[in-house]
């Protein structure tokens, strides 16, 4: 398969900022399909579709699906095993004691 009709994962920053106060471009994600771990900014995002589809750049597995209706949005991250978010102790949650 060859296709250049996608954008890079940076374009998810604004859309996901509506849902989360996390800068997606600074996060690392693990593909649940192939295990590739890398910056979410490196996803291939297909936006000429009824939603935004972020695919693993290695295996093309779907890692993020985001659908926006006028009053609702749906986020599916089941293709992302985890998101690693930079979170220094001087901001955000403290470590459990």
């Amino acid at each position, binding site marked *: 398969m060859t296709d250049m009709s996608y954008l890079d994962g940076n374009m998810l920053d604004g859309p996901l900022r509506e849902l989360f106060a996390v800068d997606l471009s600074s996060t690392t994600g693990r593909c649940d399909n192939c295990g590739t771990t890398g910056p979410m900014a490196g996803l291939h995002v297909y936006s000429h579709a009824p939603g935004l589809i972020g695919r693993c750049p290695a295996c093309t597995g779907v890692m993020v699906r985001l659908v926006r209706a*006028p009053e609702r*949005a749906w986020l599916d991250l089941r293709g992302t095993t985890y998101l690693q978010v930079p979170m220094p102790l001087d901001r955000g949650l403290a470590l459990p004691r």
Partner: protein
Amino acid sequence: MGIVSPGFQGRPRSSAPDLPPGQYLTEDFPVLSAGPTPRVPLDTWEFVLTDETGAEYRWSWDELMGLPQDTPTVDLHCVTRWSKLGTTWQGVSLDTLLDGVDTGARYALAHSYGGYTTNLPLDDLRGGRAWVVHTYDGGPLPAEHGGPARLLVPHLYLWKSAKWVHGLRLLVDDRPGFWETAGYHDYGDPWREQRYQGD
């Protein structure tokens, strides 16, 4: 920018009598895709019907071409709000493909090369309302529009007309597909504007 918002583009409501509510007319043929475009050689292409017992019915490309062909002219309605009227196709009716398949299933899950899926009631694939089409506007269906062959179910929103169709699984219980598990309507009737879950 806001997140993608096909339902929120501020387009005027349709006033044309032959357009479903909320749709606007387009003369071109927009290409929408949720992933890379599969390239499926005709010599390995096949269409597979799998019934609820797991029994399979397979057609090669040549076998599909050898079946009786229909030439439907239909209107297309995409959930992203464009409609295209009077499109001409050639393909095989699902009535032909389902003929001789003895099934008690009420649902079908279409699956495509590339991994896409979409669900439909089996009744909506019968009665001369659904086809596996391979020709568009007199020529081979281009890959970006779902070639070599796609499902065509024009009475439902176009996401139900699976591009690059590979087969149908006949199911006793409904199983939502790719967009239906991400907020889109289970049935998707454009005339009732069934875009999202709960519409």
